[in-house]
């Protein structure tokens, strides 16, 4: 087991352990914060697999953005002053069966697939190449993305705006 594998297992352990906290924690705030760690571990795995841009996106958008929305969603929607923000466990047996079947399916696919591996010591970075493509070949899509974001920005603001009469 070399250093690469060691780091991989470290990130995998971080992801799995924090994911276990997410589903098992009684307090929804603790769950939300350990979800940060889960996203972070997944970002580490992405970067280890050579998908550096995806990893950066994972950290920026999921750890930075989605988590803020999630926390705000929890803090805004609950009637926190009167209701205890705790979650319970319901329907244990059906979910156990469903998870067992799903796990068996995934594991069997994992075992029976003939994986093709390309041994590369240091994978090439993808972000620079992506930028070149965005500027040359997909420049129209790049600008259209700006318009898409503009639409999302105006839409989100006008929906969330408090009605002023």
């Amino acid at each position, binding site marked *: 087991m070399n250093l690469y594998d060691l780091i991989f297992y470290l990130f995998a352990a971080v992801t799995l352990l924090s994911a276990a906290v997410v589903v098992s924690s009684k307090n929804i705030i603790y769950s939300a914060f350990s979800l940060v760690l889960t996203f972070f571990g997944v970002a580490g795995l992405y970067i280890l697999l050579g998908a550096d841009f995806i990893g950066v996106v994972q950290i920026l*958008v999921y750890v930075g953005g989605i988590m803020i*929305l999630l926390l705000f969603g929890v*803090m805004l929607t609950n009637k926190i002053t009167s209701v205890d923000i705790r979650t319970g466990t319901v329907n244990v047996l059906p979910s156990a069966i469903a998870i067992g079947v799903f796990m068996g399916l995934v594991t069997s696919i994992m075992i029976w697939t003939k994986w093709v591996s390309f041994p590369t010591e240091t994978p090439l970075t993808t972000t*620079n190449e*992506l*930028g070149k493509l965005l500027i040359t070949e997909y420049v129209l899509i790049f*600008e259209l993305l700006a318009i898409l974001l503009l639409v999302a920005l*105006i839409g989100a603001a*006008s929906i969330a*705006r408090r009605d002023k009469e």
Partner: protein
Amino acid sequence: MLTEFGKIFVFILLAAIFVVVALFVAKLIRPKRPTKEKLSIYECGEDPVGSPWVKFNIRFYVIALIFLIFDVEVVLLFPWALSYKEYGVYGFLVGLIFLLILTLGMAYEFRKGDIQWARPEPKAINLKKLFTKESQIDNSSEIKE
């Protein structure tokens, strides 16, 4: 042989180790004599009143939504920033147009007063007499209402 991400990983590892070691050593050394006062929540010297889980102002959510959009913008600018220099003025213009389109959205937010913090409605007092000319411009949208 360390890649750039390897360096970041070393930083993360050192930061984590630093926190764990500092807390663990402090736990070993410090005396532990808890009292009721020490264990209570510190609230700037005041006696804590009520639950800490207060309901947040809805305004935070609007700001969070706006932040999310600009977060995605940064993600898209990230590959552009790494490679625009190779294309000279053209590459610069591509990013400039991208940013200008989003600045339109920012201007919209400013004009509609979404960035402005929701304040309680001003009481029925003559604001124009109270404020100087400068602060009138700052609060112009509020006075209009």
